[in-house]
């Protein structure tokens, strides 16, 4: 029953898994059995919506993040992609605990920090740092670069005062800035250099996890590559894990060996790079990928045939019933409105939440999930079926999965 043919591409990468620095590799490859440093389990964040009446009741909730589970392994990167409003930035802010989640667990090195108070969070702030999108607004214009980067050292009383400056200069050198410029102010630097300052500040406390929220999208194209390369070097040198949040699918593919695709607060597909970019089984992932304009098509001429999604993302206050993507989905059927598809593992490192998972143009005609949910093909309760009980989403991957190609159970 053992399935040998899944993810052929992954075999090479396993051997090449870099522990030490490998020239040119950057964060491209995931170490095989790295321990998860971060484990997010059924994370939820609901923002209340108040009624406008005399008495302001909570009339609804923005389900910004609704039951998201994933793992980030040590010294590797998980990419979080999706369109605006999908909850990817909220997820990042939850993990850095800028927000307190409504429910769910955030286990950092095994310790659940989801509901931790300020005192418990203080040591954690050293371990998890954030890099922001906008290098113009995230730096205090009245502070010198030296004091911006050195502030965490002073706040956490890690180094005596006279040791801070050498450390700041060392950090400036790491991010490729002139260490003599510690006395300058943020406005004296260009956009790309400011993002380097932001990165240096995040590195000051030698964190184990960096949450990078759109770290390059505000930068010019020629500068984006500089910053991406810098982040890869940092990962190789210091073994930092990344939660890399971006809307640019090509950059995420380049940076992250594992990717989660989010839509309206939920993960619709998660897997390693080859599964997501080469073997996507969710119609939303397929649509996203086909929507990316590609330079190479100039060589062939004309535009590629793409899946055209109609309309816009629905409001997260009142998301569609069942599968949230069904209102824009080209292959949606009745069951999709009735039941939310469970996130099924369909490969060694590949999970998808769709009733009709399949490669582009090869989606099954019958819902794959009907039996598991105990319903018939239209989603009506089937008295004869026994719904599966273990559909609760786990962070990480199981050793067995549904092999869709061979209609069998795959095993690692």
């Amino acid at each position, binding site marked *: 029953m053992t399935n040998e043919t899944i993810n052929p591409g992954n075999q090479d990468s396993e051997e090449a898994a870099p522990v030490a620095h490998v020239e040119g590799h950057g964060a491209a490859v995931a170490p095989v059995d790295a321990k998860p440093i971060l484990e997010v389990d059924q994370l939820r964040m609901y923002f209340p919506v*108040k*009624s*406008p*009446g*005399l008495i*302001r009741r909570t009339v609804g909730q923005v389900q910004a993040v609704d039951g998201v589970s994933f793992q980030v392994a040590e010294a590797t990167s998980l990419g979080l992609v999706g369109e605006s409003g999908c909850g990817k930035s909220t997820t990042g802010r939850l993990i850095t605990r800028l927000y307190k989640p409504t429910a769910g667990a955030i286990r950092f090195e095994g310790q659940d920090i989801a509901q931790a108070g300020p005192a418990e969070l203080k040591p954690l702030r050293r371990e998890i740092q954030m890099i922001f999108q906008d290098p113009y607004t995230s730096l205090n214009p009245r502070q010198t670069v030296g004091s911006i980067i050195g502030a965490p050292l002073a706040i956490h009383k890690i180094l005596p005062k006279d040791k801070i400056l050498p450390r700041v200069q060392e950090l400036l050198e790491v991010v490729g800035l002139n260490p003599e410029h510690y006395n300058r102010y943020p406005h004296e630097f260009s956009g790309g250099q400011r993002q380097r300052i932001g990165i240096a500040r995040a590195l000051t406390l030698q964190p184990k996890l960096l949450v990078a929220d759109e770290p390059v999208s505000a930068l010019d194209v020629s500068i984006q590559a500089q910053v991406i390369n810098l982040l890869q070097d940092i990962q190789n040198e210091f073994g930092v894990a990344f939660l890399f949040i971006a809307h640019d699918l090509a950059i995420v593919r380049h940076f992250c060996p594992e990717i989660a695709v989010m839509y309206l607060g939920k993960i619709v597909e998660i897997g390693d790079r080859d599964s997501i970019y080469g073997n996507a089984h969710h119609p939303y992932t397929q649509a996203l990928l086909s929507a990316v304009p590609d330079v190479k098509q100039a060589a062939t001429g004309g535009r590629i045939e793409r899946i055209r999604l109609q309309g816009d993302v629905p409001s997260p206050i009142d998301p569609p019933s069942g599968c949230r993507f069904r209102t824009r989905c080209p292959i949606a059927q009745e069951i999709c409105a009735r039941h939310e598809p469970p996130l099924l593992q369909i490969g060694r490192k590949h999970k998808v939440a769709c009733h009709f998972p399949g490669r582009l143009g090869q989606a099954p005609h019958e819902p794959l999930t009907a039996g598991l949910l105990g319903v018939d093909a239209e989603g009506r309760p089937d008295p004869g079926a026994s719904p599966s009980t273990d559909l609760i989403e786990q962070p990480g991957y199981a050793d067995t999965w549904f092999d869709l190609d061979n209609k069998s159970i795959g095993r690692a």
Partner: protein
Amino acid sequence: MLAYVIRRLFAGVIMLIVMSIVTFALFFASPIDQASFICGKNCSAAQKKQTAAAMGYDDSFANQWADFAKGVVQGRDYPDDPKLRETAPETIVHCEAPCLGYSRERGDTVTNLIKDTFPVSFSLAVSAFILWMVGGVLLGVTAALKKGSIIDRGLVGLSLIAYAFPTFFVGLVLYKFVAIKWGLTEIPRYTSIAEGGVGGWLSSLTLPAITLALFFMAAYVRMTRSYVIESFQEDYVRTARSKGLPERTVTYKHALRAALTPIVTMAGLDFAGLMGGAIITESVFNYPGMGKLAVRASSDFDLPTTVGLVILLATFVILANIIVDLLYAVIDPRVRLG
């Protein structure tokens, strides 16, 4: 909309109650003993006690405040003494609801005091408001449209000078020179419409209104100028131009409308603040307005008058806030009340 107004009014009433309590508490905490202050220097202990009892100062803080609140709702008698009501009813002053108290120093109910002084302050505030809004906004828009020209620099310079001169000085100069030395106007003395008709009322307001308006006008010229200049940088102004709209339409329909919205907010609040009286202007011109009343009340430790004025002024500010917010919602479709 209605629910919003009701909620805001409700919140406003609560705020007024809190403010009256705070004002009471401050007077209670003050080191000056009210009774001996009123009773005078050569006051025996017994006399003092009697005064305190008559004034109600021997009562607890809570009771005094409760009496005050009752007066606002129901009206009150001063002194509230059943015996006296039978023996000498003519010495009792009845203060009708909403009664803000009775000022012993001035021998009148606070409501009456305010009734006398309010028209003066209101006339002054309204006339100054019209002057500064018309002048400030027009000149500010002019300066912005001619940005960088001599007119612009002149206006900015003048407004800086006007802004820098203290009000009492401007008032004095106008009073001593324009009215007295050159005799260009009559010597200002407040004249109500009943006394002097609309013409007399207006001419009596000219100099103090200019005095009061000048400072605000200077501020509004600068503020309007910067808002208008800023709004010409907006993307939607560029869009309006790229549609081929005439510059006139771009300016008036697109740029100015957005630029003047924040000025509505400022103006509403500034006006409400002035309703409580322009202390310096009223003093310089010796106009019997609420500002002068407030100064005297606080230096005399006249608690009822002070509380009454505080409440009234706060009411104006709260109402102005609500009106400004409603106006904003009318002007800007993005604003949702709630």
